[in-house]
């Protein structure tokens, strides 16, 4: 008989659990700031969230890493606490994403640039660093390149075949996969810029030119190493002839093991990325859903902290993590926009 009673008790417990969970669901699901988006901006938002949690009065923000595209999808899902307040992006919001937001009622968005990030081509300290131009990088990494006036499959096997001063080792570059914002930025900043310097490419028709400029080689010389930058760092440590493409913050943290290849004579550094002389750098964004101001507790305070001098200024704690700060005027402007919720002007709402 005991067994039957135990079962009854168990069933009652299960029913109670379900009942309590449904009633809890009816209440507000969260009382903290929720941010999604780019894994490149993740460490910065993480740092601000931790600093924010030291201040009294608000729950610690939740920071989730979904990638820029995934973040946009969640962010533009709709208004209300079931959707995130903030999404981070390692590129600007696209027109299609803006339209998606508009369709779902997310019409009032503030775009904040929090700083810039350089993308570095790095090699182990045991390996050889050299100076390369973007045109030469295009020759080393594109699927098809100009050969004797014709566009043909990339024939270059070794760095020294591109320029005699380069190391005489086989080309082997680890880089991010197409789903990554870093890859998008690399293609835009290096491959597309580099290919334009060839008259053979210029002569091509529009669609074909885009294809030649954007496609990375797939013959094993450029290796997609997954989203995890630490993994690339480990590969470079193990093999001094291998090169890797990743964000400047990873190079900065691993300076004891890695060195950068200079691009057009400039090595990536805070100063060179900040003033634009290091050409492979990109802006980092945070998008704020203005409809959540005053609804999500702490959202405005979080933004105030994010855009304060101690945070994203030249001596702020984000710079310690590898972020490259904006100019004084730009920072003041971003701070004002963060506070007054100025709508973004990149696309015109229809």
């Amino acid at each position, binding site marked *: 008989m005991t*067994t*039957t009673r135990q*079962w009854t008790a*168990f*069933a009652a417990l*299960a029913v109670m*659990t379900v009942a309590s*969970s449904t009633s*809890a*669901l009816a209440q507000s*699901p*969260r009382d*903290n700031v*929720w941010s999604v988006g780019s*894994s490149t901006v*993740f*460490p910065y938002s*993480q*740092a601000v*969230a*931790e600093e924010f*949690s*030291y201040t009294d009065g608000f*729950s*610690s*923000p*939740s*920071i*989730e*890493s*979904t990638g820029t595209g995934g973040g946009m999808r*969640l962010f533009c899902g709709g208004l209300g606490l*079931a959707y995130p307040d903030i999404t981070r992006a390692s590129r600007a919001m696209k027109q299609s994403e803006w339209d998606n937001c508009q369709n779902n009622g997310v019409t009032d968005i503030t775009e904040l640039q929090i700083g810039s990030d350089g993308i570095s081509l790095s090699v182990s*300290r045991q390996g050889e660093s050299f100076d390369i131009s973007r045109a030469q990088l295009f020759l080393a990494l594109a699927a098809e390149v100009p050969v004797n006036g014709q566009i043909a499959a990339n024939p270059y096997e070794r760095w020294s075949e591109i320029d005699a001063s380069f190391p005489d080792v086989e080309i082997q570059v680890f880089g991010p996969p197409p789903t990554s914002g870093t890859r998008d930025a690399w293609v835009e900043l290096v491959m597309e810029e580099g290919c334009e310097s060839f008259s053979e490419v210029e002569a091509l028709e529009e669609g074909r030119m885009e294809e030649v400029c954007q496609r990375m080689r797939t013959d094993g010389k450029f290796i997609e190493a997954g*989203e*995890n*930058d*630490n993994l690339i760092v480990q590969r470079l440590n193990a093999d001094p002839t291998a090169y890797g493409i990743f964000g400047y*913050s*990873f190079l*900065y*943290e*691993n*300076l*004891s093991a890695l060195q950068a290849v200079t691009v057009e004579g400039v090595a990536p550094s805070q100063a060179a990325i900040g003033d634009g002389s290091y050409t492979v750098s990109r802006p980092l964004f945070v998008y704020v859903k203005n409809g959540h101001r005053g609804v999500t507790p702490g959202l405005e305070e979080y933004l105030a902290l994010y855009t304060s001098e101690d945070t994203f200024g030249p001596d702020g*704690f984000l710079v310690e*993590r*590898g972020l490259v700060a904006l100019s004084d005027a730009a920072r003041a402007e971003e701070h004002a926009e963060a506070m007054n919720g100025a709508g973004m002007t990149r696309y015109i709402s229809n």
Partner: protein
Amino acid sequence: MTDRQSLDGMAAPNWNDPAIQGRLKRRHRGASLLRLGGIVAIAIALGLLALLLGSILSIGLKAFSQTVAEIDVPISTEYVDLENLEDSNWTRLAQDGVATLYPDDATGRRDQRYRNILSRGGLNAVRGAIEEQVIADPSLVGQSVRVSVQLSDPFDQFAKGVVRRDTPEDMRRITNDEIAMYDGLVAEGRISRVFNTWLFTNGDSRFPEMAGLAAGLRGSAMALMVCLIISFPIGIGTAIYLEEFAPKNWLTYMIEVNINNLAAVPSIVFGLLGLAVLLNFFGLPRSAPLVGGMVLALMTLPTIIIATRAALKAVPPSIREGAMGIGASPMQVVTHHVLPLAMPGILTGTIIGMAAALGETAPLLLIGMNMFSTDLPGSVFDQATALPTQIFMWFDSPELGFVSRTAAAIIVLLGFLLMMNATAIFIRSKLERKW
């Protein structure tokens, strides 16, 4: 009356015949080769396991200790509210305490170079520590309280020998000046290495020296609890019905085949299901242990059903017939006799299913349980991480200190898996009955 007599009609084999000898030798050689192959296979497996554990332990054990600096924090009456201790200016007290380490330089300013030696999150830790100690013992007001603060990650790595003194200055994160100051602190006897309890009590942090597994452990515990509450009763109910009551027809046969197939479905598929159905359709909260537990329950269900059916099948029919014979109803036969006898087998299967669920990462990533928060989750509806997703996130972090912390977290996870599997083995060997 042995077998020999049945062979009487046959001629006794001549064991010295070379043909027989040859065949015999071949057979023996085959047997010893098989044995050798088995030993080699086991040796390779053990070797790889040793390599794996060895590399994880050699990296991860470092993270179980933490270099700390001892600070004497003066509890000045100026900032303490004796009427209401909680309202005292703990931040100011902590700041002044940390400042006692900094010698005033010629210009009278605090030396900023020290700030890189102590953890950046250290001030908060000091504040928490003195607040706790003084409230527990108000007589400390006016005296000074000794607290330990974690060193920042670069100096923790330096103290542990990962970052070396003879490395050129431009190749490390710490400057020669800072090392000289650190040596000063060592000479004062303020630096020591202690067991890293913060690894188990702190939530996540961007500073490796402050980061702990408490949030991941709690998130995993919550998700497993939800998983158990859902999958245990449903799993047992399904198994009892299929094994004891269901008619044997093509429908139940199809159900059986499907359950067995479900056990082999990759876990990420359950994650996609959770994302599409639980989050997008039912609108349950993202990143919550509730949803994590539900997804893990889907994954664990087939394991529990299969284990329960095997345990029920192992109960001899005579017990059912005996119970039936003294007038028990089919329901009573199951709940009074068969189920209690099968319970040890069921529990073993459940624990093994739970252990698999504990280590599962992919479905949790899909429903967003890889999020950062310094808070610990308060309920199953809060956004949370789990132990494996915490490992995933730490592995992705650029700071040097997270390399050893990732390995340490793996050791903790393996520890829990080992404990669960040991419990399962204990239950099986001690409680299970053999007929």
